[in-house]
């Protein structure tokens, strides 16, 4: 063959091959986990997928805050990744992205396994698309977390008390930690820097919002109805919000919360608990015990996970759950490959080890995974309580899953600001809630 023709053929072949390879590359932005095991497990899953499907996956780990930031920049530039997964997506972004119409409809990924998924998970990903004005499935549920309570049993017992004495109903429960346990622990340890309630009070932490939502549940207060309409104008809602805020801020005003809590970021309530500055703490996910996993004595004997107290009238409280979502972008290059990857990832034999690598920090949303020895036949004290919270107790979803505009209220943490008004500026709970309602209406009302 003449030389020129050969060169031309080679060039064409190479171009075809390289664009083929390029077109096959699946771009995945994944949230970096807190534990090496979880990341390693994901590496294995990707490798297995590449082998089975022949699709090359280009994935990168970003931290919690960076994944949404990168996605925003990419969306602005018109060049989003194919698939993205962020722990904070559901709290701050997913339902808004769905509304804005930038997400790909993933019903064909979720519908086939719908029967295995928990109802809260389905509810969390069936979102309103503002362009079509219809609800459909725009995200893929991967795992979930609820708010747990942890305590240092060792300190309580050192003070001569027992966890069996803790009252079961709401107000009495919080008062016990503050008025009974705190003085006793301080005396027993001789350390005046011990606090009975490690409640996050900061407007810089999403933990504050999570905890406040639980307090709203305790007082039977809903911010939106099932269709997503705001209920904040109703007097019962306002009353409920005030009662919740009063209950929330009471321990701090009584001196039972570390003063620095108003400055805590996510992770600081963990830190203060681990160092026994506070000896009882609410926290989403089982990250606190998981971080002590290696210290067997502390993990198994000294630290406990507790259920939340019952509502003031004795009924069991509903747990608000945060469903972690992965999303595929409508303007991405490789949506089919992304869907294939997610189908692979969601298979119990892949997702199971992934969640196990996270040391029980996340809980499955797939019943097939819940029904495994890892969760059902464990003697791990923390996991036992966790399973109970998820399977035996009622669950609700976040209000902003139903009304995406409330995401902005989350983003600026108006709830944390209301808390700040009460504890830093001596506002009454009524005034703080009125300001909060005003802000909610301003941001989400129209």
């Amino acid at each position, binding site marked *: 063959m003449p030389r020129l023709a050969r060169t031309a053929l080679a060039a064409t072949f190479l171009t075809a091959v390289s664009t083929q390879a390029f077109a096959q590359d699946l771009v995945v932005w994944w949230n970096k986990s807190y534990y090496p095991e979880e990341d390693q497990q994901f590496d294995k899953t990707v490798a297995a997928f590449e082998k089975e499907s022949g699709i090359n996956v280009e994935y990168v780990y970003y931290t919690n805050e960076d994944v949404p930031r990168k996605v925003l920049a990419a969306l602005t530039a018109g060049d989003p990744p194919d698939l993205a997964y962020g722990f904070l997506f559901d709290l701050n972004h997913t339902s808004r992205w769905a509304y804005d119409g930038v997400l790909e409809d993933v019903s064909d990924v979720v519908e086939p396994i719908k029967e295995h998924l928990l109802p809260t998970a389905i509810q969390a990903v069936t979102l309103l698309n503002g362009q079509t004005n219809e609800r459909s499935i725009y995200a893929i549920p991967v795992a979930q977390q609820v708010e747990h309570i942890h305590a240092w049993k060792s300190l309580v017992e050192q003070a001569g008390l027992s966890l069996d004495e803790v009252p079961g109903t709401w107000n009495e429960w919080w008062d016990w930690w503050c008025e009974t346990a705190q003085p006793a622990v301080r005396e027993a340890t001789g350390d005046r*820097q011990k606090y009975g309630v490690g409640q996050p009070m900061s407007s810089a932490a999403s933990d504050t919002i999570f905890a406040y939502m639980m307090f709203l549940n305790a007082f039977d207060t809903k911010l939106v109805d099932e269709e997503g309409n705001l209920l904040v104008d109703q007097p019962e809602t306002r009353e409920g919000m005030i009662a919740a805020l009063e209950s929330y801020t009471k321990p701090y005003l009584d001196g039972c919360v570390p003063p620095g809590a108003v400055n805590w970021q996510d992770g600081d309530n963990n830190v203060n608990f681990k160092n026994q500055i506070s000896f009882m703490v609410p926290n989403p996910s089982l990250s606190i015990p998981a971080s002590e996993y290696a210290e067997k004595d502390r993990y198994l004997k000294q630290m406990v996970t507790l259920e939340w107290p019952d509502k003031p009238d004795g009924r069991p409280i509903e747990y608000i759950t945060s469903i972690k979502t992965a999303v595929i972008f409508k303007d991405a290059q490789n949506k089919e490959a992304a869907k294939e990857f997610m189908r692979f990832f969601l298979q119990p034999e892949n997702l199971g080890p992934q969640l196990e690598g996270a040391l029980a920090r996340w809980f499955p949303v797939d019943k097939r995974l819940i029904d495994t020895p890892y969760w059902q036949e464990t003697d791990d004290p923390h996991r036992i309580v966790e399973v109970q919270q998820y399977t035996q107790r009622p669950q609700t979803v976040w209000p902003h899953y139903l009304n995406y505009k409330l995401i902005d209220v989350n983003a600026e943490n108006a709830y944390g600001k209301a808390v700040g008004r009460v504890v830093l500026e001596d506002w009454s709970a009524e005034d703080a809630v009125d300001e909060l309602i005003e802000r909610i209406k301003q941001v989400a009302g129209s």
Partner: protein
Amino acid sequence: MAVTALGLPSERVGGRRWSPEMVWGTIFVIPYVVVFLTLVIWPVAYGVWLGSGLASYRTLFSDPIYLKTVLNTAIFLGVGINLKLFLALLLSGYFASVRPWVRWLSVIFILPWAVPSIPTIFSFRWMLNSEWGMLNNLLWTLFGIEGPWWLVKPDYALGSVVFIHIWKYLPFWTLILLAGRMAIPTDLYEAARIDGASPLQQFWYVTWPQLKNLYITSLLLSTIWSLGDFNSVYLLTGGGPADKTHVLATLGIRYAFNLQQLGTGVATVMTALPILVPLVILLVRRLGGRVER
């Protein structure tokens, strides 16, 4: 043949005289012009465009923390800069002394400025922690008093921000003013001493007139730079508690990157323009004038 300033022969190119200096000069200046166009003009123009939407300003002004942020910025600038430069003036006199150990002290004194911000400001942040910080612990063990909640009470928190800002930048300005003092001819002091002037009079009649221009220039420059001081607030308090210690610089970043509202973020820093622009004009006149020959 025409001759240019440097006496080099010039040639006619395309109807205009292009001396070798002009050719070389143009070539030499091209890298800078490229940098300027791609990395200054384009981002600034884009920023102005981003911040030109009225909706962003409406969002901004309706945010309850905006007013507090402006107030904080005003206090931060008003107190921080004046205190800092006043101290710098005093300390420059102190370090002008010829005592040998003062020389050593001035070498240590520069550390806050030379060491990176993150570790020093973090270190300070933990020192001030109400539960286990070194400062309150010291107060308790030495004097038995409960230290204030430094970063919890908003006023104390703002004060701490001003403090750490002064801590970091005082050495730099002291150095500037010290250099200014060194440039004052000593025979002026001699003449004053012969006349029997007291140290205070020497300062007022010799030092101050010579330093005045530098002092004012430094004030203006420091104001502009402090407007952009992100680290002092962000690393010490994060803008907290409850967003009560934000300044315009940190608030803008918060809007743009935490709340994903780029337009409002730019709008925030734009609202500083009424202060920034007059300062810049003043300063360019003061400094730019000297560049001319």
